[in-house]
């Protein structure tokens, strides 16, 4: 998933560099005064080593672990994202794995999206089943990170393949490989829970982190806007166009094709994205509320 130099346009690389520096800067600010340097330094080395383990898959192939969600679960999102950023920086500056100009995008995908999504998914679901929560955190973190990588590459004009190719390729492959990531994350979390359960206790993150995550999610409609501006369409729609098929919807939905009838298509996509985000957040909040009520009862 490491994007090399030459694959991203400089404006896309610059945008993600700024976003990454903001989040890393905020994480360093949140960790000020805490003597954690050795913890995320040594754990970065451990994640680096764990990434070298190739896990055999039936059929003669193998895959390796990334560790973003695990870093978030063990260290909390701030120290976790710094640990992953350290791993990625060493990979760039020592092994030339991932480009210097793409450093911001790589850290954004694997050290911020993967870690924060992994951490919050684990927190939201660990009350139901710890192992399942760790599995979903590992799987979802890596899959969403890969989709972000696909969006960044697909939006770059330097890379001739568009979003219609890059997002499905990155998303589908990593959704499959994410099963391995999820399984290893669950295995490690399950073992640590039996030996030193206090390491998995909730890390103090405060409300600001929710704002940070909300900002992260809120960026998705911006990407949708960008996708509109580069003329992105679904691969299935392209296939239908080639085959001369016509859409015959039974029910068009409240926001047909991510638009609002009578409104400018770009504004419609932005608003549709925001509405989608709000629905997901509301559902997540409802589940959390229901769970806390059940616990109180």
């Amino acid at each position, binding site marked *: 998933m490491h994007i*090399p*130099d*030459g*694959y*991203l346009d*400089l404006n896309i*690389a610059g945008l993600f560099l700024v976003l990454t520096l903001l989040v890393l*800067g905020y994480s*360093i600010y949140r*960790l000020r005064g805490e003597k*954690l*340097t*050795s*913890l*995320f*330094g*040594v*754990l*970065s*080395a*451990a994640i*680096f*080593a*764990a990434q*070298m*383990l*190739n*896990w*055999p898959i*039936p059929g003669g192939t193998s895959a390796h*672990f990334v560790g973003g969600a*695990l870093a978030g679960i*063990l260290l909390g999102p701030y120290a976790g994202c*710094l640990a992953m*950023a*350290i*791993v990625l*920086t*060493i990979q760039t*500056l*020592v092994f*030339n794995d991932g*480009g*210097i*100009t793409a450093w911001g995008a790589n850290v954004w995908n694997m050290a911020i999206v993967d870690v924060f999504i992994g951490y919050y998914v684990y927190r939201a679901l660990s009350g139901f089943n710890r192992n399942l929560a760790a599995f979903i955190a590992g799987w979802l973190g890596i899959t969403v990170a890969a989709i972000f990588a696909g969006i960044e590459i697909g939006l770059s004009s*330097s*890379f*001739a393949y568009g979003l219609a190719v890059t997002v499905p390729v990155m998303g589908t492959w990593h959704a499959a490989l994410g099963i391995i990531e999820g*399984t*290893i994350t*669950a*295995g*490690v*979390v*399950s*073992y*640590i829970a039996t*030996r*030193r359960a206090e*390491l998995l206790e909730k890390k103090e993150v405060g409300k600001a982190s929710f704002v940070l995550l909300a900002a992260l999610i809120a960026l998705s409609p911006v990407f949708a806007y960008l996708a509109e501006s580069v003329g992105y369409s679904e691969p299935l729609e392209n296939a239908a166009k080639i085959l001369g098929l016509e859409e015959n919807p039974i029910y068009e939905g409240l926001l047909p094709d991510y638009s609002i009838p009578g409104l400018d298509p770009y504004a419609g996509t932005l608003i549709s994205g925001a509405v989608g985000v709000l629905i997901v957040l509301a559902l997540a909040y409802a589940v959390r509320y229901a769970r806390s009520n059940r616990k109180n009862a």
Partner: protein
Amino acid sequence: MHVVIERTLKNASSYFQNFFLQDYPTKGTLHSIDPRVKLLSTLLFVILAVSTFEPKKLIFLLFSLIAISAILGLNLRRLFSRVWLFSLFSFVVVLPLLLQDPKYPFLFTLRVLIALVSVQMLIMSSSFAEICSALRSLKVPEVFVQGLWLAYRYIIVVFQDIINILLARESRRVSKGSHMDLWKRGGESVGLFFLRSIERAERVQLAMASRGDKIFGIRSKFGILEIIYIALSLFIVLWCIVL
């Protein structure tokens, strides 16, 4: 099946031990240049390479970098052995577009190759300690640079840890076991490995607190070598822009 994990780990471990021990195999002129200058010029070359698709600019840049590397004492064979594989991979990725635009796959690969050569010029001529000091001098936060340096130093130690854990588990194993067993035992091994790493980190933190551990930025002034290298880099950049 168990052998796969053990073998990849042993290979990776020996590779990294060799890699770190060969930090400074030979010292050429490029090694003597201040890493701050090399870091910034690398950044400039990479930005230059990824901001154009013009063949003459890319070819000029590639030949300039190869000439600098050769004159300033880098082993060109080693340099190309480190960059050819990924350049070839990039070419294969964009090869299906050959019919649409015959020039594109070659120019795209050339951009990637130049960026890889630029970064390798830095990596092959600077130790990681120098790069960390350069980052500190360029005002990268101390907590990040310290973490970077600590992680780099502990990579070999943690590799040894994970090999010891796997070796201990392997010596206790009595049957071959299924894929399921392997994944279960593997998860436990990696869990134990992370636990040991956390405990090691706690001890390291105490040691650091007692003796102090800081990465200091480079404070020395630039010499004639650095000034020549800066002038050379700026000349290449300007020439590339006006070309």
